[in-house]
């Protein structure tokens, strides 16, 4: 009976994930034990401390290249870089989530189960403290994302996918204002997400049938050996890719994005746009670069077409949007296309440029959503585009900041948008993917139009009766906004240090 072999587990390498899971569990206990009024006061420092502690352990592991826990987890350059990026972006998003001065009670509803429009609902809209369950849910989601980018076999990756998806579904439903829209968003995200998970799981089954293993190194051996049925391999890889591209919001698996981004509480939208995207592309990188580089010539044309379609759909439909959050959602879809261009380079530069793009885009998008939380009237956020007309006259500072962020999205030089696009296009060019670069440049020009339209509206229109005021941000939102804008500027002017870091971090362990 005593011949059981236990896998060696490197607890230091797993520490960031364990810390965040622990903090999330502690957060649940806080919800159970601490009186309602004081929960927020405990949860915010707890969450921030946990994230900082996790970041310390990520940095301490820098340079590690190993697989642990029976090859289920890979701790290498990309994993550590992505974990660090998710944690830092998570901190900034958590600042937005913790903001309570913009709206009495914060961005979340007090009792999500109360029927919309009932007497109890009207009284809670007036300023009852929001549901603090949001904090442990965010921690669970972030912990799942950390595991997602470090997963070295398909089943671990699937478990991580579920761990970070389920809290996000719940968080989408918690908006204080426009609750029906929020609940609709959560339901759509949940149903479509469950569907995508099923695709992913079926892909795992087919790949297991092909390779006889679920770890990426064994799959790589099977793919390069070329034995086994091609049908299983390609059907399996296609289903896996559908599951991942759904989370990354690539067309034609993007249809949930505008609805969910619009309906979810804006801080949660920023969390999804920054962290979920980072996690999804981190996992996609590992699957394609570690598991299936032997099939590059087979999947590159297909995912290349998806990349072009994603850029086109994002750019063209962004032009027609009338809601700021939906506009940013389509912009996020288009950015998924540019990220795919970097991924498909299939070179070390492809990895490093994608990592750089994820960080640059994450900070910019969080700052953009931070501005969206500020432009409000009596009914909450005024997200309709027509309401933003003339904002430049009413509040030049915030209109200026938002203009800068939009120019960064459009890829104007001296912003991180330019350097990151330059990096991914350069990598794709170096990888021989000129067709993707051409499509990327053309759609970037197309995508500049909706951004510039907003800029023109904000500055060149007269403010009308319905132009909302811009709230003075509290300390948390100010901090998030300043961090986002500074990083956007810094990575545009001085991208060298981060580019060096991504180049050094771009090496997967197999």
């Amino acid at each position, binding site marked *: *009976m*005593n*011949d*059981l072999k*236990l896998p060696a587990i490197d607890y230091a390498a797993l520490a960031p994930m364990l810390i965040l899971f622990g903090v999330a*569990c502690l957060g*649940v*206990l806080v*919800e*159970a*034990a601490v009186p309602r009024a004081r929960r927020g006061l405990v949860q915010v420092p707890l969450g921030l401390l946990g994230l900082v502690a996790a970041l310390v352990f990520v940095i301490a592991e820098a340079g590690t290249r190993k697989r642990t826990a029976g090859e289920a987890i890979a701790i290498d350059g990309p994993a550590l870089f992505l974990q660090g990026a998710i944690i830092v972006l998570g901190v900034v998003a958590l600042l937005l989530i913790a903001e309570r001065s913009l709206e009495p009670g914060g961005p979340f509803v007090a009792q999500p189960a109360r*029927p919309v429009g009932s007497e109890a609902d009207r009284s809670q809209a007036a300023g009852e403290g929001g549901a603090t369950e949001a904090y442990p849910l965010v921690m669970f989601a972030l912990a799942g994302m950390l595991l997602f980018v470090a997963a070295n076999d398909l089943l671990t990756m699937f478990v991580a996918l579920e761990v970070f998806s389920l809290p996000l579904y719940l968080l989408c439903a918690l908006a204080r204002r426009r609750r029906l829209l929020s609940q609709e968003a959560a339901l759509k995200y949940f149903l479509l997400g469950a569907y995508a998970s099923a695709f992913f799981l079926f892909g795992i089954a087919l790949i297991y049938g092909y390779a006889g293993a679920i770890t990426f190194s064994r799959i790589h051996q099977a793919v390069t050996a070329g034995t086994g049925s091609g049908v299983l391999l390609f059907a399996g890889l296609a289903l896996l890719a559908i599951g991942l591209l759904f989370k990354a919001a690539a067309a034609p698996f993007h249809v949930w994005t505008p609805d969910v981004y619009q309906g979810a509480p804006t801080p949660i939208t920023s969390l999804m746009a920054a962290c979920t995207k980072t996690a999804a592309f981190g996992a996609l990188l590992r699957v394609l670069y570690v598991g299936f580089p032997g099939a590059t010539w087979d999947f590159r044309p297909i995912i290349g077409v998806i990349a072009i379609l994603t850029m086109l759909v994002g750019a063209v439909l962004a032009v027609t949007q009338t809601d700021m959050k939906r506009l940013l959602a389509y912009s996020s879809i288009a950015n998924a296309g540019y990220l795919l261009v970097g991924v498909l380079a299939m070179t070390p530069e492809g990895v490093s440029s994608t990592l750089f793009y994820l960080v640059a885009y994450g900070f910019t998008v969080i700052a953009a959503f931070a501005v969206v939380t500020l432009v409000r009237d009596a009914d909450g956020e005024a997200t309709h585009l027509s309401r933003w007309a003339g904002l430049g006259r009413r509040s030049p500072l915030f209109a200026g900041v938002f203009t800068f962020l939009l120019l960064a999205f459009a890829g104007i030089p001296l912003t991180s948008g330019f350097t990151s696009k330059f990096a991914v296009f350069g990598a794709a060019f170096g990888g021989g993917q000129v067709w993707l670069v051409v499509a990327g440049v053309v759609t970037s020009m197309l995508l500049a139009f909706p951004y510039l339209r907003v800029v023109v509206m904000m500055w060149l229109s007269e403010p009308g009766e319905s132009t909302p005021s811009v709230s003075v941000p509290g300390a948390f939102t100010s901090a998030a906004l300043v961090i986002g804008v500074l990083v956007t500027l810094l990575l545009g002017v001085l991208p060298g240090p981060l580019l060096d870091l991504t180049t050094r971090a771009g090496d997967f362990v197999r």
Partner: protein
Amino acid sequence: MSLSAYVPIIALFALAAAFALFSVGVSQIVGPKRYNRAKLEAYECGIEPSPQPVGGGRFPIKFYLTAMLFIIFDIEIIFLYPWAVTFDALGLFGFVEMILFITTVFIAYAYVWRRGGLEWD
């Protein structure tokens, strides 16, 4: 591959089917038949099937809460059984892992308990 490996499974299927048919048949013959209102209602978990409330209405979810809590402990037991069988082989490592697992389940339980999930009304 030999199909004989599947014989026990087929036998189990046959046994299960036979038991189901036997139980239904026997209860028809020997069971007492005392009807009351509740027995004639459609089986729906917590919902009054008729009359339908206006606009779908709200229905109590306490049945669902109880059922979900049951599932959590059910899963816990499923993990506890094989662990108990191989306890000697797993040793201290297995013991610590199981304590951690039970702790996380207990945290969820504490949350439900403190927030009133176990109160029926």
